[in-house]
């Protein structure tokens, strides 16, 4: 069996199946939805950081832009939710195109510039002068499209497509070329790889993922403020989850979200007073002892991790 089929069959299908069945047996649907959103965002970070090495500290910019793309379609054009989600994805891509010059930067400079860009988009959207279009700082209420069950299903579809994209990257010469660019851009060009084109494609793909995720998020919650959907927590969480599991793999970000977001909620329910202490220690431990993520426990023994 070719490995691309194996990855789809033994990683993507079971994960999606579990999250499709869980709402029937577990009551906290919002928690399940958040898991799906973070699984998607962590894989989006995986596409851009794991495969090209750009750390997107302002990743939430695409998410928030997608959420507002959804809101504007619904508020002003009475568009069906599905169409509005797709537009949310396109808004993410458009913002990605606008920010392509950032790819000239590298390392911390890229991360800082990307963070600044996401704050700029937040303040643009939240500007009271745009109240007629975005409702400015007063937030949006999209009661007309409110349908958590459909929104949850749409989120699962977005997650499936995102996972399929990562499986493709993991199994194609395109994904290999992206990793080559991450390792050494000069050598990659000497292997015949068009470095700029590769980076832009990965960048826009990860923007699309976040834009779509933002769209379904807006659909699900239906009432939100700029500060909610542009919250830096989304960027930080998605990055930490992806890194905790291990990037440039399919399973790493999945394991990262399940464990870390699971622990996050477990502490939140049981001992909220120690919440930040425990979580902070966990992340420090990760950075100190497992900088390449949980999967490195296996890879350093020579085991192959899909």
């Amino acid at each position: 069996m070719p490995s691309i089929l194996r990855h789809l069959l033994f990683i993507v299908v079971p994960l999606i199946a579990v999250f499709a069945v869980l709402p029937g047996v577990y009551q906290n649907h919002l928690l399940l939805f958040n898991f799906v959103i973070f699984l998607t965002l962590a894989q989006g970070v995986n596409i851009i950081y794991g495969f090209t090495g750009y750390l997107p500290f302002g990743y939430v910019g695409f998410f928030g832009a997608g959420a507002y793309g959804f809101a504007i379609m619904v508020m002003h054009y009475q568009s069906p939710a599905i169409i509005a989600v797709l537009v949310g994805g396109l808004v993410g891509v458009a913002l990605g195109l606008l920010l392509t010059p950032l790819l000239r930067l590298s390392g911390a400079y890229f991360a800082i510039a990307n963070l600044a860009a996401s704050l700029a988009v937040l303040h643009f959207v939240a500007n009271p002068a745009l109240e007629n279009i975005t409702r400015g700082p007063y937030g949006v209420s999209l009661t007309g499209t409110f349908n958590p069950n459909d929104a949850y299903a749409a989120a699962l579809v977005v997650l499936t497509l995102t996972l399929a994209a990562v499986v493709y990257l993991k199994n194609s010469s395109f994904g290999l070329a992206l990793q080559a660019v991450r390792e050494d851009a000069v050598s990659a060009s000497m292997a015949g790889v068009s470095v700029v084109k590769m980076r832009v494609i990965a960048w826009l793909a990860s923007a699309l993922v976040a834009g779509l995720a933002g769209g379904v998020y807006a659909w699900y919650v239906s009432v939100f403020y700029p500060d909610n959907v542009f919250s830096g927590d989304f960027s930080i969480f998605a990055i930490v989850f992806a890194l905790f599991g291990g990037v440039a793999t399919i399973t790493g970000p999945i394991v990262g979200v399940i464990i870390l977001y699971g622990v996050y909620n477990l502490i939140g329910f049981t001992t909220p007073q120690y919440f930040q202490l425990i979580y902070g220690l966990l992340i420090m431990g990760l950075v100190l002892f497992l900088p390449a993520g949980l999967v490195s426990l296996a890879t350093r023994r020579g085991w192959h991790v899909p």
Partner: protein
Amino acid sequence: MSPDSAPILEVTTLVKRFGGFHALDGLSFHVTSGEILGLVGPNGSGKTTAINVISGLYAPDGGEVALDGHSIGGVASHKLVHRGINRTFQIPKPFLSLTVRQNIEVALAHGRAGVAPPAMAALLEEYRLTEVADRPAADLNSAQQKMLDLVRALATGPRLLLLDELAAGLNPAELDWIAEKIKALASTGMAIIVVEHLMGFIEHITDRVIVLNAGKEIFEGTLAVAVKVPQVIEVFLGGEHAA
């Protein structure tokens, strides 16, 4: 050697400046298919800069680089690779976290070789990388990394190969071995430019050398003649040694 046809690469009064420093200051030379040309000269004379301009890492500030009679100055590296130019690096630059096999796969998949490049297994075997094929490139020793760098270049099926100090750091047995490999490549019609400090190695494999000083060629011919030319002796050893 068969310098019978038109040159594959023609470099004419090439200029490359870094700020006020003229790394290349009117360099001219040519190389034909099947020929091994040596570029020699003291440190800082512009050898690596010449390779970097020809392979598209730098755009020239003046003069012309022509491949098959078409100007290629300033064309992006990956496009030059597709047109048949490739190179190795003085300090090898493999994709460290990828396996040796994946390193080569990237070049095989994206090099768009004009003629079918050698198969993966043949490349691994011929350059003594079969044993380490599934290890990350980071695990290789420096000689192996140099061979991987060379194989990465060969996997794109180059017609013009630029070797930047490939021999430095190899032991005598490895030197003899790689010299034969380079000669065999040239005998298939590949044009090869060799930048090297090891004069014995240069003497052994090149048909012709260009001696560079301060970004210009000061001699063209065989190494045996070059070492008797006062100007060449002067730039290598200092004025008092020139007879």
